[in-house]
C-alpha cells in the first residue's frame, strides 16, 4: 500500500517538476533579456475568457489528431515527420470535393472525410513504400514529401481557385451550408461554438487505444517497435507492418484539417493553418504516445498558444516567447521522467534488497540450485 502511494507520487512528480523547471527557465530568460517577468506570467496565467476557452478546445482538437497520427508511427519506431504534408494534401483534396457539393448534406461530409483519409494515407504510403522496397529512411523521404506537398498543393490551388473579386485570398470553393458541421454551445458567456468535430478527435483517440491495445495487429505493431528481431522471430512481417503503420498514420493525418474545414474555414486556401504536423510531433512526445496524455498535451499546447496572443499588447514581449516555453516544457518533461524513472528504479532495488535481507536470511542462495 505504502509502495503504491510512493509510486503514484513518483508518477505525479515528473510533470510537476517539468512545469516548475519550465517556469524557472523562462523567468530566467526574461530576466536576462530585461523583460517584465511578472507581467508576462500574469498574462499567461490569467483565467482565459470564455471566447478563449472555446478557441483553446478547438485548437486542441486539431493538435490532438495530428499528435495521434505521429504517435501511431512512434509506437513502432517510425518517425513520420510528414504529417505536415499529409494533412495539407488531404485537406486540399477533401475541400475541393466538398466544395463541389455533388452530394447532399451529411453524405457529402462523410465522403469528404473518406477522401481525406485515403489521400493522407496514400501520401504517407509513398514514404512507406520507399522504405520497404528501396530502404529509404522515412525521415528523409517525409521531409522531401512535405516540400513536394507544398509545391503540389499551391500549384493545384491556383488551378481550381475560386477567385472572388476584391479578395486576395486564394481558396477552394466554399463548402455548401448544408454540409457544414454545427458546433456545440459548450461554454456559456460567448457566442463562439466548440467544433462539432471535437467528437471526431475523441473517436480517433478511442480507436487508437483500442487498435493498439486490444487487437493482434496492435500487439504486433508495438512488438515491432520494442524489438524488431523479437517480432520477426514471432512471425511478424515487418515490411508489411511498416507499410500498414505508415498508411494508418497518414490516414489519421488526413483528418487533421477536417475540424478546420467543416467547422471554421469551409474552404482550403492560402490562409489555412500551417505547421500543425510539427506541433503534433512535440505533443505526441509530451503525451508519451498515450491517448489521454496526448489530450492533456494538446490542451496545454493550445492554452499556451491562445494565451500568448495577448503578450505583445499586455506585456510588450514578442509572442514567440511561447515557443521557448513549449520547447522547454517538452525537454523538461522527458528529463523529469528519466530522472524519476531512475529514482524509482533505485527505490525498488533498495526495497528488494531490504526484503531479501529481512525475510529469509541465508536461504536465497540455495533456492535456485538443482536438487
Amino acid at each position, binding site marked *: 500500500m505504502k509502495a503504491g502511494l510512493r509510486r503514484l507520487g513518483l508518477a505525479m512528480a515528473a510533470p510537476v517538476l517539468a512545469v516548475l523547471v519550465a517556469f524557472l527557465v523562462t523567468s530566467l530568460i526574461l530576466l536576462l533579456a530585461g523583460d517584465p517577468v511578472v507581467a508576462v506570467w500574469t498574462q499567461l496565467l490569467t483565467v482565459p475568457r470564455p471566447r478563449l476557452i472555446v478557441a483553446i478546445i478547438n485548437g486542441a482538437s486539431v493538435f490532438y489528431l495530428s499528435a495521434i497520427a505521429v504517435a501511431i508511427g512512434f509506437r513502432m519506431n517510425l518517425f513520420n515527420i510528414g504529417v505536415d504534408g499529409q494533412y495539407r494534401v488531404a485537406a486540399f483534396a477533401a475541400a475541393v470535393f466538398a466544395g463541389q457539393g455533388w452530394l447532399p448534406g451529411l453524405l457529402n461530409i462523410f465522403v469528404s472525410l473518406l477522401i481525406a483519409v485515403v489521400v493522407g494515407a496514400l501520401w504517407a504510403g509513398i514514404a512507406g513504400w520507399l522504405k520497404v522496397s528501396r530502404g529509404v529512411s522515412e525521415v*528523409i523521404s517525409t521531409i*522531401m514529401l512535405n516540400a513536394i506537398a507544398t509545391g503540389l498543393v499551391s500549384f493545384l490551388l491556383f488551378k481550381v481557385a475560386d477567385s472572388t473579386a476584391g479578395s486576395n485570398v486564394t481558396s477552394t470553393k466554399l463548402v455548401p451550408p448544408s454540409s457544414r458541421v454545427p458546433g456545440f454551445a459548450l461554454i456559456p458567456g460567448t457566442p463562439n461554438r466548440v467544433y462539432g468535430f471535437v467528437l471526431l478527435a475523441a473517436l480517433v483517440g478511442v480507436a487508437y487505444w483500442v487498435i493498439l491495445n486490444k487487437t493482434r495487429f496492435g500487439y504486433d505493431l508495438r512488438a515491432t517497435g520494442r524489438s524488431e528481431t523479437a517480432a520477426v522471430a514471432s512471425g511478424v512481417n515487418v515490411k508489411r507492418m511498416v507499410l500498414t503503420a505508415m498508411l494508418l498514420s497518414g490516414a489519421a493525418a488526413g483528418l487533421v484539417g477536417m475540424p478546420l474545414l467543416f467547422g471554421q474555414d469551409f474552404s482550403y486556401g492560402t490562409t489555412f493553418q500551417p505547421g500543425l504536423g510539427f506541433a503534433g510531433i512535440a505533443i505526441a512526445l509530451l503525451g508519451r504516445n498515450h491517448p489521454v496524455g496526448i489530450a492533456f498535451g494538446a490542451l496545454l499546447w493550445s492554452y499556451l498558444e491562445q494565451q500568448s496572443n495577448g503578450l505583445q499588447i499586455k506585456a510588450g514581449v514578442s509572442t514567440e516567447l511561447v515557443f521557448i516555453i513549449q520547447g522547454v516544457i517538452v525537454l523538461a518533461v522527458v528529463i523529469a521522467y528519466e530522472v524519476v524513472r531512475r529514482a524509482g528504479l533505485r527505490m525498488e532495488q533498495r526495497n528488494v534488497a531490504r526484503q531479501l535481507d529481512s525475510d529469509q536470511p541465508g536461504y536465497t542462495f540455495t533456492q535456485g540450485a538443482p536438487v
Partner: protein
Amino acid sequence: MSTAGLKAGAEVVTGAVRRPSRLSPRQIALMAVVAVLLIAVLRVVTGARDLASSGALAAAIGLAVPIGLAGLGGLWSERAGVVNIGLEGMMILGTWGAAFFGYHYGPWVGLLGAAFCGMVGGAIHAVATVVFGVDHIVSGVAINIIGLGAAKYLAARTFTGTPGGGPTQSPALASLPTISIPGVSPGLATLEQKQIFFVSDLASILGAFVTNLSIVTVIALALVLLTWWVLWRTTFGLRLRSCGESPVAAETLGVNVYRYKFIAVLISGAMAGLGGGYLALVAANIYRDGQTGGRGFIGLAAMIFGNWRPGGLVGGAALFGYTDAVQLRGGGSTVHALLLLLAVLVIAIGLWQLLRRHRVIQGAVAIAAGAIVAGWFFVSDTVSDEFTGMTPYVATLLVLALSSQRLRMPAADGQPYRKGEAG
C-alpha cells in the same frame, strides 16, 4: 521508444561482413567527368544554357554550403552515436548569432557568434541526451522549437529600432571578403563564352570555384577535410567513432564515452550554427525570420544520403544545391531540360532491370514512367513555377530511391548509453 529506427528494407548483411566497396580517386574523377559530359550533352541538345553557366554553379555552391555545414554537424554527432534532429534549431540560433555579433563587432566576430550560438543549442542537446540520457529525437524536436522561438524572441528584442532593422530582421550586415584568382578567372570566363562542347562546361565549373568565392565557402570546404582527417585519421576520432559503434566496448577500453559524446555534440552544434551564419552573413547579408527554411533537415538528409561519410555528404549537398540553383536561375525552361535527363535515366534503368536482371514488372514500370516523362518533355516547352520549386526535393528523393541502398549508420546511433549498464 528508441530512435535507432527500423531495419526493414535496409540490406541485411549475413555471414562475413563485407567491406563496403569504396570508390578509388580515379573512379570518382571518372564519374565527375561523365557527369560534366552528361550536362554538356544535355545543354547542347536542349539549349538550356543555365545548366552549366558559371552563374548557376556559383549559386549552387552558395546553396550547397549551408546544407553541407548542417550535414557536417549531423556527421559529428551521429558518428558519436547521438542522433541530431535538432540541427535546424541550432542553425536558426546561428543565423541570429551571426547577425547580432556581426552587427555589433563586424562579420568575422559574427561568424564566431554563429558558431557559438549553434554550440549553445548543441550544449542543450548534449546535456539532455548525454547527461540525462533522454530520447534523442525528443530532445532534438524540443531544440528545434526552442531555437525557433529564441531566435525570433531575441531578434525582436535586439533588432527593433536599429537602422534598417525591425522585430523580424536585422540591419544590413557587412560582407566577408571573397576570393578571385587573378589571371585565371577572366580566362575561364572567356572560354565559357565560346560555348565549345565540354570545354566551356568544364571552364564554367572551374570558373565558379576561382571567381568571387566567399571565404566562408573555403572555410567550409576546409572543415570537411578537417572533419575527415580528425574522425578517420586520429586517435581522438577513432575513439569518438567507437562511441557511436559500440559505447560499451569503448568503455571497457577506458574511453570516457560521456566526454566524447559531449564534445561531438558541441562541435555538431557549432557546425550547424556556422551553416546558419553563412545564410545570414554571406547569402543574404541580413538576418530574417525563417531564413533557414528547413535546411537543417535537408542537411541531415544529405548526411544520410552520403552514408554517414564526409565525401558522400558533400555529394548530397552538391546535388541539392545544384538542382535548387538551376531551378532558381533558369526557372521552368532549365528544369524542363532536366526532364529529358530524367526520362533517359529512368528508361535506361528499366532496360537494365528487364534485360540484365530479368525483372519484368519493375523494368516495364520504369520504362513506362520514363516514357511519360519523355512525353511531358516533348509536348511542353516549360515547367510551371510551382513545380520547379520542387526540383531539389524530387531529385533527392529520386536519387535515393534509384540508387541501391547500402547505407550503414553507426551501429549504436540513437541508443541511449548509461555508464556501467552494459548488459
